[in-house]
């Protein structure tokens, strides 16, 4: 088991190196003079020259990359022009908001999609099956920002059930004392049910938007995988042994069928992390996505670079976790290593 984890970790290193190189190249690939961009639109030629020297933009590319890597190792992602704060600090502050949203969305998605896929596979051509297929096909066609807007229109404007899409918490309430940064968890820890409910209400629509977005690939994969497993030899043996329906479908079929679904989760995360940015814009969510978008519009490039790097590193880490999870379930991967 440990060898497998170490092997996977080792395999992640080239990816991380590639990520660092690409993010470096992205900012040095700016058309024109990078110093101008980093100095900002209002800079004087003298200020630009200062920035150029300060960021080492007059040095050879290799040396620049070396400095970049060293900075990264120290957790230095540069400074934002618009806020004057270190990018790393701002990202760290805003990360829990994005994480809470994305994880809740994914959780809701799995809770709906997996049972839907299982039911669709065990009752082929039934109503559930047709619904599953429609959702899978339609779900991938819906632009995520469009879904968000429709939800706001229906549930906030028309029905008045949801609060205004203005961020994580109602203006009148203050955030709970910081433990994890997740308002849901922190408010429970602080024993503050009012804040908990208020946070939850703000979370529902954006999380639902993300959930709808990731529902389709998960449901489709679960259904396809279950269908394949249900007609396999191992299920035939289980049925021939007279095992109960629950044992056959869940203990025997589902656990085997989950394996391709877990692999799919990697791709789902790729989409989710991207969709996060769009959802944060729709719901004015103060996460790292909206941080990057605001910086972009102000031509403030350090935060954008930091954002892309952070997202990529998180993605590599998530894929690593998925690999390990897969190994936990499938002994063939674990023990063969």
């Amino acid at each position, binding site marked *: 088991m440990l060898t497998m984890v170490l092997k996977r970790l080792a395999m992640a290193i080239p990816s991380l190196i590639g990520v660092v190189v690409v993010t470096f190249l*992205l900012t040095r690939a700016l058309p024109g003079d990078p110093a101008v961009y980093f100095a900002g639109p209002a800079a004087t030629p003298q200020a630009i020259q200062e920035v150029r020297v300060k960021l080492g933009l007059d040095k050879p590319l290799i040396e620049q990359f070396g400095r970049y890597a060293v900075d990264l190792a120290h957790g230095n992602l540069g400074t934002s022009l618009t806020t004057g704060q270190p990018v790393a600090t701002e990202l760290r502050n805003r990360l829990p908001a994005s994480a809470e949203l994305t994880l809740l969305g994914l959780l809701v998605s799995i809770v709906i999609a997996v049972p839907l896929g299982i039911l669709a596979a065990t009752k082929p051509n039934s109503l559930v099956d047709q619904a599953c297929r429609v959702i899978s096909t339609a779900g991938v*066609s819906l632009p995520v920002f469009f879904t968000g807007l429709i939800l706001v229109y229906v549930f906030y404007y028309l029905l008045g059930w949801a609060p205004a899409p203005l961020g994580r918490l109602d203006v009148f309430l203050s955030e709970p004392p910081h433990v994890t940064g997740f308002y849901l968890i922190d408010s429970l820890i602080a024993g503050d049910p009012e804040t908990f409910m208020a946070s939850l209400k703000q979370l529902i629509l954006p999380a639902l938007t993300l959930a709808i977005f990731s529902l389709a690939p998960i449901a489709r994969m679960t259904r396809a995988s279950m269908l394949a497993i249900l007609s396999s030899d191992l299920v035939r043996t289980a049925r021939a042994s007279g095992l109960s329906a629950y044992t056959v479908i869940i203990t025997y079929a589902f656990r085997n069928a989950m394996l391709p679904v877990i692999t799919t989760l990697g791709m789902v995360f790729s989409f989710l992390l991207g969709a996060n940015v769009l959802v944060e814009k729709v719901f004015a969510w103060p996460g790292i996505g909206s941080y990057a978008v605001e910086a972009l519009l102000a031509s403030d490039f350090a935060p954008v670079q930091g954002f892309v790097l952070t997202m990529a590193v998180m993605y590599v880490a998530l894929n690593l976790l998925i690999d390990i999870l897969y190994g936990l379930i499938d002994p063939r991967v674990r023990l063969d290593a």
Partner: protein
Amino acid sequence: MTDIAATPRPESSLVALLRHARYVIGENPVTGFAFALFVLIALAAVFGPHLVPYDPLASDTVESLKPPSLHHWFGTDQLGRDIFSRVVVATRLDFFIAVASVALVFLMGGLAGVAAGFYGGWTDRIVGRIADTIMAFPLFVLAMGIVAALGNTVQNIIIATAIVNFPLYARIARAEANIRRDAGFVEAARLSGNADWRILALQILPNVFPILVVQMSLTMGYAILNAAGLSFIGLGVRPPTPEWGIMVAEGAQFIVSGEWWNAFFPGAALMVAVFCFNLLGDGLRDLVDPRRRT
């Protein structure tokens, strides 16, 4: 005297393909519907700007934010522009972005993948490394980064979309080229003295194309979503150019006050287009490789 005209000419492969296409569409009316929709979208892209009732850029502040009516089928936006005209005209831009992205990634990914599969060795390793590095990023985030770095233009959206889809095409092309590398007809071509690039371009690539075509249809849908998403956050297309993504962005602020038509119609157009390309991709898959039906 032999009457040559009396002997039936063998069916050309194009005719056979069309006949097979008609059979598949007959079998599966959904594919036929998707194909018809595709033609409709293409026609709107080409002829739309000439046929719309209003100038998409003409503002008329008196008429601003009017709901859908007989005068303005999709209503008007905050500057009084007719949304229907703007949605139809935007078809051209979004369609163009989709087609251009897909063409670019087919060339880049297809050629790189075919070369990697055919030559193996270092070519394979380098292409693989590039693909792996691209896939280490969440794709939309990478597209954001590329457009931010290269500049805020439509060309760069196309380039970013192509780069982000490169790994998939390279992988498919590589696998197909690998299979065919040792095939008989390739050996024959090699033995008769054809240069490698000729074999690649004339023998292998045409064989790889059908399999990539399925992916290309699906990528067109993704390319439109990508472009719309980037425009939604302010990258790529700039107002007042009509494009579905920025139209939704501009309309977003009015949702909370109930003027739904601003964001709804361009969003619905997006949905319909992407849905069409996805259905078409599924149908093409049945046409090209019935074994892979889901």
